[in-house]
């Protein structure tokens, strides 16, 4: 039971429980925000953020709770944001899809598919100009690799050797449409990146340690001017595209497809690698933290009416 395993478990379990609690609260209508849960695919954010430092940046999509938490973004700020409260990370103006924590290196997440990719590439350009050795990791789904700005960004990053790690969380679906209906070569994501000059690694079993190892190698290279890299992590989304529930009864996929992924759930896997006393202590800490964050959100004030017009311009 290494220190690394405990650290990764804590991060994985914390995200899992935050999202489970979010799903539990959701039917109460206290969260009036479309939630895109990462349950089942938390390990990508956890593994990548584990090799990043406080000065490094991460960017993501509407499905960014995991990234936000793994990078050290505020938990009370996240919950309060979903509640639409003044104390939320966007002061109630972004909701679940637009998380941010500048102090923790979480750039704002974006809800138009793929838009975070060039934006994060711009952060990487700024990092290169500053020459401070910081790096950027940007998370996106398989659907985003079909957007033009994905190719445009990778080409630019390769051309200028920008310090950015492109992380494709390939869960096989764009909403309900499988990759096979969207790509002539569903296995072609890494090849496309390579063709643009971005070295790419595919990890197809969802192993948190394998993803971490690939990220560590890539980040070490880019800190000394080695240029961008891409990791394609194949994962599986357990819940709906958007919403708190499972959707295996909807006809587009079934339990049989999910079963192998649930059997190699990284949260359960790492839980089994910890001794019971350590695990219980970690779990208890997580539950207390979440309870406090929810209480904070519940008791926070709603935004004042004048907030509607605040911050249209800086």
């Amino acid at each position, binding site marked *: 039971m290494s220190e690394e395993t405990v650290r990764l478990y804590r991060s994985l379990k914390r995200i899992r429980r935050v999202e489970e609690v979010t799903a539990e609260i959701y039917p109460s209508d206290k969260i009036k925000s479309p939630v895109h849960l990462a349950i089942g695919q938390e390990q990508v954010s956890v593994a990548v953020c584990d090799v990043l430092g406080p000065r490094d940046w991460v960017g993501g999509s509407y499905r960014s709770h995991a990234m936000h938490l793994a990078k050290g973004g505020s938990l009370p700020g996240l919950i309060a944001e979903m509640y639409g409260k003044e104390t939320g990370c966007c002061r109630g103006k972004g909701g679940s899809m637009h998380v941010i924590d500048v102090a923790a290196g979480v750039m704002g997440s974006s809800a138009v598919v793929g838009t975070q990719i*060039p934006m994060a590439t711009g952060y990487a350009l700024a990092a290169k100009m500053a020459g401070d050795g910081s790096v950027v990791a940007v998370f996106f789904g398989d659907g985003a690799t079909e957007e033009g700005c994905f190719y445009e960004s990778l080409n630019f990053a390769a051309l200028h050797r920008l310090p950015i790690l492109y992380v494709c969380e390939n869960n096989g679906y764009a909403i309900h449409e499988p990759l096979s209906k969207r790509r002539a070569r569903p296995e072609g994501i890494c090849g496309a990146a390579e063709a643009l000059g971005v070295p790419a690694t595919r990890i197809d079993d969802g192993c948190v340690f394998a993803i971490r190892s690939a990220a560590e190698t890539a980040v070490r290279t880019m800190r000394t001017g080695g240029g961008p890299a891409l990791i394609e992590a194949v994962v599986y989304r357990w819940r709906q595209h958007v919403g708190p529930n499972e959707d295996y009864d909807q006809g587009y996929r079934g339990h049989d497809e999910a079963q192998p992924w649930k059997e190699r759930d990284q949260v359960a896997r790492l839980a089994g690698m910890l001794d019971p006393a350590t695990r219980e202590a970690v779990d208890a800490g997580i539950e207390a933290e979440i309870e406090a964050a929810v209480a904070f959100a519940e008791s926070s004030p709603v935004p004042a009416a004048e907030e509607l017009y605040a911050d249209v311009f800086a």
Partner: protein
Amino acid sequence: MSSPESRTLRYVDALREAFEQEMERDSTVFLFGLDVDDHLGIQGSTKGLLERFGPERVFTTPLSEDAMTGVAIGAAMAGRRPVHVHIRMDFMLLCMNQLVNIAAKAHYMWGGQVRVPLVVRSMVGKSWGQGAQHSQGLHALFAHIPGLKVVAPSNAHDAKGCMIAAIRDDNPVIFMEHRLLYNTEADVPVAPCEVPFGKARLCTRGDDITIVGVSNMVQEAIRAAELLAEAGVRAEVVDPISIVPLDIATIVRSARRTRRLLVVDNGWTMCGVSAEIAARVAEETEGVRIRRMGFAPTTCPTSPWLEADFYPNPATIAETAWAMARPDAPAWRPDPERARLAWQVQFKGPF
């Protein structure tokens, strides 16, 4: 605009001077876009900057307007001050997702935690076969979106002052330049100077009619005013300089006095800037006669004979203003030869 510390400068050189002075002052300013570092340097507006500031701060881009706009936005949020250049405003349609969904909204939707100090400059073409896809004034599309500033300087003085103000602004600024203005000259301060946004300028004074021009239409309206003056009609030409923020108060004040408002835009009238100005004046005044002029409601053709009727010009502006100011007098139109502007006559292609 004259002072001992100024001299006559072309619009394009005034822009170049703004970049040089701001890049000298602030090392976070950088300039990128297709052709900014080539031997022509965007008609000269970026010439010599590569040699002066190096390829880290002056560089071309792949033909990837969408992602390059996103890169500029990200770099801006990370503390840089990018100036992104497009050689035609039409090409900015490839950037709409980034500009409308990210740049305009970033400060607001992320709770004020980030700023986007970005300048997007683009040229509007006219004449010499620019045609459907090289001639569009799309400022109204951007002005529609909260969070974007839109400026359209009409002379060399304002080109420099607005560019410096845009670079120093913490918000995304859409900077509309008209290609035919590039060779026009004005008195421009030698020192860095800012022309503030949201403050209109009265270019001529008059009591008979208010004419608001946008971009190059300011110059066309000034010529129209000169011809109208010879016919005994005194027109007050107003240059809003910035569309967002819009100094509607100055326009309303003038229109209340003259009782007549003619808005001449370098764009279509349908849902355009002229519609906005007309509506605001109508809402805030009583009894003001309002008319609008702009691009003809069709696509810009390339044939010079067809193109001539696509745009308002000093003759048609003067004719319209006369009819508004002298409704009971016979129709009047100035000699078309005298209505032609030197900077339009002198222009030769290719661009």
